[in-house]
């Protein structure tokens, strides 16, 4: 029997998975937008974004929009690769369910 694939624990967290999925459809997204879409709190989202950043799956950019500071995130190529691998592993695990 073939060995079941491992799911990437960094991606598997619900909020982190939600953020990465959101980022697949956009080039960049700011923190407030991600917070609104995921319904999370500042603290929780900030902590999860840090984990994704440390894993190299997202890149952060700080800039000013007028006088307002803005934190933008984009998915990195290794983030896309990891998400694709995660989806492939999910497919294998779920078999015919997908």
């Amino acid at each position, binding site marked *: 029997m073939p060995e*079941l*694939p*491992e*799911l990437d*624990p960094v991606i*598997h967290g*619900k*909020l982190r*998975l*939600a*953020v990465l*999925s*959101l*980022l*697949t*459809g*956009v*080039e*960049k*997204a*700011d923190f*407030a*937008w991600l917070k609104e*879409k*995921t*319904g*999370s*709190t500042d603290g*929780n989202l900030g902590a999860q974004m840090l984990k994704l950043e440390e894993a190299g799956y997202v890149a952060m950019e700080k800039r000013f*929009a*007028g006088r*307002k500071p*803005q934190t933008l995130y984009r998915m990195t190529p290794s983030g896309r690769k990891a998400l694709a691998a995660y*989806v492939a*592993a*999910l497919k294998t*695990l*779920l078999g015919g*369910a*997908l």
Partner: protein
Amino acid sequence: MAHSDQGDGATRDDLLQRVALMETMIAEGRRTTTRYGWMFLMWGLLYFVGMGWTMLLPMPNLAWPVCISVGIAVVIVKSWQKRAGATENLRSRSVEAVWEGMGIAAVLFTVGGVLSGHGGQPIFMAAILCMVGMAHGISALILRWGMQGVAAAVWWGCGVAACFATTPKEMVGLFLTASFFGMVLFGLYAMVLERRHAAAPVQHHA
């Protein structure tokens, strides 16, 4: 990690929830990037104001410079505000680029037409109408949005008809017809759709 026990129904449910979460978020990320209905409505109304001022109010020479300047100022302020809290994607940037390019071309063409004294000719009006139709048409193709294709057809149809116009009254009528159906009504329709999308339930998986 909850992946190894595939005999466990809860684990399988958990994985299926992850799939549903991804689908929801991907769709959410794609759908919330463009809200331009108000802009079509605003430009359509400004066209009516410009035309009305030209025909009925004093200092008609100021009508279009003022109306176009107001429109551009509002767009600049709004795009500055958008930068302070939104997302960027290739599709929305492409649509914006089409309209910005059309806007610049139309303004330059109008200035050239007015300065050279050709501004009142039917072919001049036809070109403006077709330019707006082209922007609608390209945008419709990018977004695969049939209703915007209809708006493009209205502008193009009026553009072709303007080639055959013989009086200024006919040209004004065609321009206002295109503005009403292809900007005001289309803008209202787009705003209703955007509002519906915004009100649609979104799953929050924090």
